[in-house]
């Protein structure tokens, strides 16, 4: 580390300390730059400086390896940690520090914008009752015929053990009433006839340029080369029906409350 960057680092350290001092003085004093205007300014800065890698929607980019910033941040456990990452970068990665002449408030505004993309699950008020939702999930519906929660249930749909961590209540409701809106490629279906002439159908566990892997309805795993395929059909719709007509509004709210509660125990 050269002298110049050491000075930047120590400046960031000072900001961190002053942040801690303020936080110690007032319970709510985290990021001081967190008004609606600050968030808007932070968004503009993000779009300009960060979106090339992290995406215009901050949802990350597998190609650049830039992580999704809208959910749980693996490195940014606090505002100060996020600030320091933006200020100093992550050495040895494509995450470069912002220019030294970018003022601290601008970085804090960016932190505020990133904070605005997430929320404190404790602060969310839910219309439904999680306990009633749990009962509905396990005993009053067919959810567990496909889904699994902590080892209980089935394998024919996404594991919901931690679904509350990255899906908001609004997202969860949308998933229930309009499942075809966004189906992850892992849950597309493939119907293929291999070189052996046998037709197989199942969930698309993985597909690459030269082979594919499926789990059929008997939960057998098959890895099939694409060379010599006699038939190939891909179905990108969800196998889950819409529950808009199947469940009442109150039942949907209860189910959402239960799903939203599914997260790591320590949280």
């Amino acid at each position, binding site marked *: 580390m050269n002298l110049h960057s050491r000075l930047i680092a120590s400046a960031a350290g000072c900001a961190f300390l002053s942040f801690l001092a303020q936080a110690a003085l007032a319970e709510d004093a985290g990021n001081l730059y967190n008004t609606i205007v600050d968030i808007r300014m932070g968004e503009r800065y993000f779009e*300009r400086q960060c979106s090339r890698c992290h995406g*215009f929607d901050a949802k990350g980019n597998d190609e650049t390896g830039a992580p999704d910033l809208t959910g749980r941040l693996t490195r940014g456990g606090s505002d100060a940690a996020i600030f320091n990452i933006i200020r100093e970068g992550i050495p040895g990665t494509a995450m470069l520090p912002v*220019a030294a002449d970018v003022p601290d408030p601008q970085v804090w505004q960016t932190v505020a914008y990133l904070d605005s993309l997430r929320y404190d699950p404790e602060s969310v008020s839910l219309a439904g009752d999680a306990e009633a939702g749990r009962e509905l999930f396990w005993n009053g519906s067919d959810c567990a015929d496909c889904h699994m929660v902590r080892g209980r249930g089935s394998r024919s749909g996404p594991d919901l053990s931690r679904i509350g961590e990255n899906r908001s209540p609004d997202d969860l409701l949308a998933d229930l009433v309009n499942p075809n809106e966004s189906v992850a490629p892992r849950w597309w279906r493939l119907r293929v006839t291999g070189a052996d002439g046998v037709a197989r159908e199942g969930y698309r566990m993985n597909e690459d340029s030269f082979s594919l892997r499926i789990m059929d309805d008997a939960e057998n795993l098959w890895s099939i080369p694409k060379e010599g395929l006699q038939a190939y059909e891909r179905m990108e719709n969800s196998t889950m029906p819409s529950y808009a007509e199947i469940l009442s509004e109150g039942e949907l709210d209860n189910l959402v409350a239960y799903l939203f509660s599914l997260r790591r125990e320590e949280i």
Partner: protein
Amino acid sequence: MRHPNSKRPAPLLAALLAGALAAAQIPAPAQAQAQAQEQALSTVITPAFSPITWDRLVNAGSEPENWLMYSGTLDSQRHSLLDAVNTENVTELEMKWAYQIPVIDRAETVPLVVDGIMFITEAPSNVTAVDARTGRPYWRYDHPLPEDLRICCGRNNRGVAILGETLFMSTLDAHLVAIDARTGNLLWDTEVAEYSSGYSKTAAPLIVKDKVITGIAGGEFGIRGFIDAYDPATGELIWRTHTIPGPGEFGNDTWLGDSWATGGSATWITGSYDPELNQIYWGTGNPGPDWNGDVRLGDNLYSDSVLALNGDTGEIEWHFQFTPHDVHDYDAIQIPILADIEFGGERRNTMLWANRNGFFYTLDRATGEFLLGETYATVTWASGLDANGAPIRVPGMAPTYEGVMVSPPIVGATNWYSPAFNPDTGLFYVTSFDGEQEFFKRDEDYEEGERYTGGGGRYTQPMDAFHSAIRAIDPTTVNIAWEFPIMPRSSAGITTTAGGLLFSGSVDGYFFALDAASGEELWNISLGARVHAAPMTYAVDGEQFVTIASGNVVFSFGLRD
């Protein structure tokens, strides 16, 4: 007997001497034979290489055991005359060695091989020399970098150029360095531009006669692009040709007000050279800001163009602009492929170009005349090309504040990854992508060293919903002869060989060989990590190797012993 430690003349002197003696030069196969004999008798394990003269570079195709420049030959066809590995025996390929790049990042390198020594560039801006038979290192040059780099798209380096016994490499802090090919010693280090203003360098330079020709990156930072020529002995700038005309120069009035001064038009991939026409061909990048054209009304010359420069003076002899007033980031940062083909009953000096904007072009490279063009991937922003090759725009496709869906997406129908041309099949090969993306416009003021893009893009579907393919295009009809589908989004380059093979890689970590004539798959191996580079091939002691970087590793394959 040649020995690596023996006293030798200064590298450039040696190059000039060798150049002067070119007429008496031993033909390549004989040379290889002599070398093999010498190595058999040698007490040292490592081979030594003879200096690279300009004549050797002009005739690089005739010594296919070596890979002497980024695109293989000055015409950038990426076609090797090696045929020991061919359609009959390609299934016998096996891994011979792997070189793990110690700095974890993605490798975009195309190594050079000179007489059994391979030069591999590494992220962020390093280069290493290894024994091309074993992958074991001789030396490594680490380029120190400042911590506050301004780079848009990752810590990349794509390769070196060589002349005499000197390597030339671009660095992320916008320097050009010269390195002794035998030791890795730094010979000179020239600042090409000020990195803190947003300039950077990632591409392999191109040697043209006695000059090092090199471009610049930074099109997302409001730079003003250029192509430079440097003295290989001293690193001194000989000429600079700006890719945006200054006040009073032709084309400056294609920029609103002062927007020319921050208009981008970077030159971040290697060009090509025609010795007979004495023209350097180089592609230029997007105008800046990328997605908000309001502040730079006009055609924005010479952004998204190919420039033909005089090989001695750098003067612009002609230009062809693929995408006037671009608002989608459709850089013409592709490698110009020069091919002499039968066209309309006569043999033409053509340039073949599959552009990021989704159109394939056949141009006359002597004049820049547009001959033919057609889409080769999904395109919605333009409905076709007019008689002069200018795009016929579809209204309502410019980015908006709310977002508008357009194909190709920002990454383009293709991008910087190397295409190839195989004179045996007459086909041009390109890695192509059919995708779409929402384009957004934003208002931004230029600030030196800050990003200046005026918007961005967003996918609304998972990547797997799209489609990538290797497409073979007949440049005389611009029809697609065949395509080989691979998973999206592939960013691998292509190389073909006299063995009838096409080599490429895929996003899901395969390295594979196709029949170059039919597109039929002949061989593949899973290397496990994204291929983000182009293959190259070489031979040592008569044994052909095929090399590709996948993830962080350079792999070399050869026929089973």
